């Protein structure tokens, strides 16, 4: 997967103290994210591309080989329109 993911139109990502988790807010609803989903989405800022997000997560959690899991999550999130993947010339 190549490109730079950013939040889909109308979605907002934030930490919710009352839920003790990251959430995605959208018109009239809320998705609670598990820890890894939250960590991935926190890095989908429209600046970092997929490779940078993976590298960042691997550094943060002193892990390696995360690419498959991250891409799996991103593909699901794109399908659900939580994220848009921008490809081609980077902003």
């Amino acid at each position, binding site marked *: 997967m190549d490109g730079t993911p950013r939040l889909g*139109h*109308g979605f907002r990502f934030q930490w*919710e*103290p*009352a839920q003790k988790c990251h959430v995605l807010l*959208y*018109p009239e609803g*809320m998705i609670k994210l598990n820890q890894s989903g939250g960590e991935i989405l926190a890095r989908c800022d429209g600046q970092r591309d997929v490779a940078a997000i993976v590298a960042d997560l691997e550094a943060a959690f002193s892990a390696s080989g995360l690419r498959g899991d991250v891409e799996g999550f991103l593909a699901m999130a794109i399908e659900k329109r939580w994220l848009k993947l921008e490809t081609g010339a980077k902003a």
Partner: protein
Amino acid sequence: MNAPAKIGPPMWLLAEVTYRCPLHCVFCYNPVDFAKHEVELSTDDWLRVLREGRELGAVQCGFSGGEPLLRDDLEILIGEARQLGYYTNLITSGVGLTEARLDAFKAAGLDHIQLSFQDSTKEINDFLTHTRTFDLKQKVGEMIKARGWPMVMNVVIHRLNIDHIGRIIEMADALGAEYLELANAQYYSWALLNRDQLMPSREQLRRAEAVTNEWKEKLAERMRILFVVPDYHEGKPKKCMNGWGNVFLTVTPDGTALPCHTARMLPGLSFPNVRDSSLREIWHESEGFNHYRGTGWMKKPCRDCDHKEEDLGGCRCQAYLLAGDADAADPVCPKSPHHEIVSAALENATNPNRQTQPLIFRDPKESRRLTREAKTPSPTA
């Protein structure tokens, strides 16, 4: 008490900031006696309510009414709500919306606007015939999109417009709607007064659903369409408000806090006012919010029913309005001993010789008249 042991946070704070409204919808969900609740909360009261709701854990904040644009502090309230971390939603007819006002909402951080189509008879006609209303919605729609908000539309569907549903969808598409909710009228408040005129026949509903499905396929790429089936026709009680005191906390223009915007009509239940209690006390401790939480309050047939967790016995207001007993099973349920009332209304909708009274339009004068006339809020059968 029968409330479940653990009460989670409300997800929604619904701020009904005013009952004032330039429109006169025959299906209006505001209480029939709205004109007697005239004293509105101040800006400071609302700011406190927003803060308390957020502390309680609410994440979605809806501004509705009446027509919320009539509050000239709306941008202040939106700004505070956004600042506090709510996802902010404005539900408006768009009447009176200007470029300047929208700019102020944008600057305040408003997340989402839902443009609703009101005034069923006249407005829909104007809309369908491409006159004033269409032009107004088009203008407002363009202003909304130009500022980067998605275009989300809501149309209340009933007997008088249901046969035009294909045309309504087509027009919504012409306006660039990305999301369209076709909500069948629910028979409370003003819609109940007008039920005989508003309720479609089964046949009308079936056709409308078929037409909607065709459009859904055709427009799948650019518009999502949601068709909300009325519970009368489905014969299936709905889990009202997603559970009493479970998801929604509504604050009315005068500060009364309610688990649902029509709950105020229920007799013998007292609902607290945000002027006297904090939202935390209201949500967790008040009698009004605890009374119908969970399933402990139920009697037969709900008490012994396998579906009780699924639908929580349906809507309390509908039980009261139709069966005269707020603890009864929702009469739309075939197991309800009062189901006959619902069948009769449906039957009547099919009768070509049915008798109807003239439509009653929602306005303050009618509201005062009806309040005077109703010694008790009479269950309408």
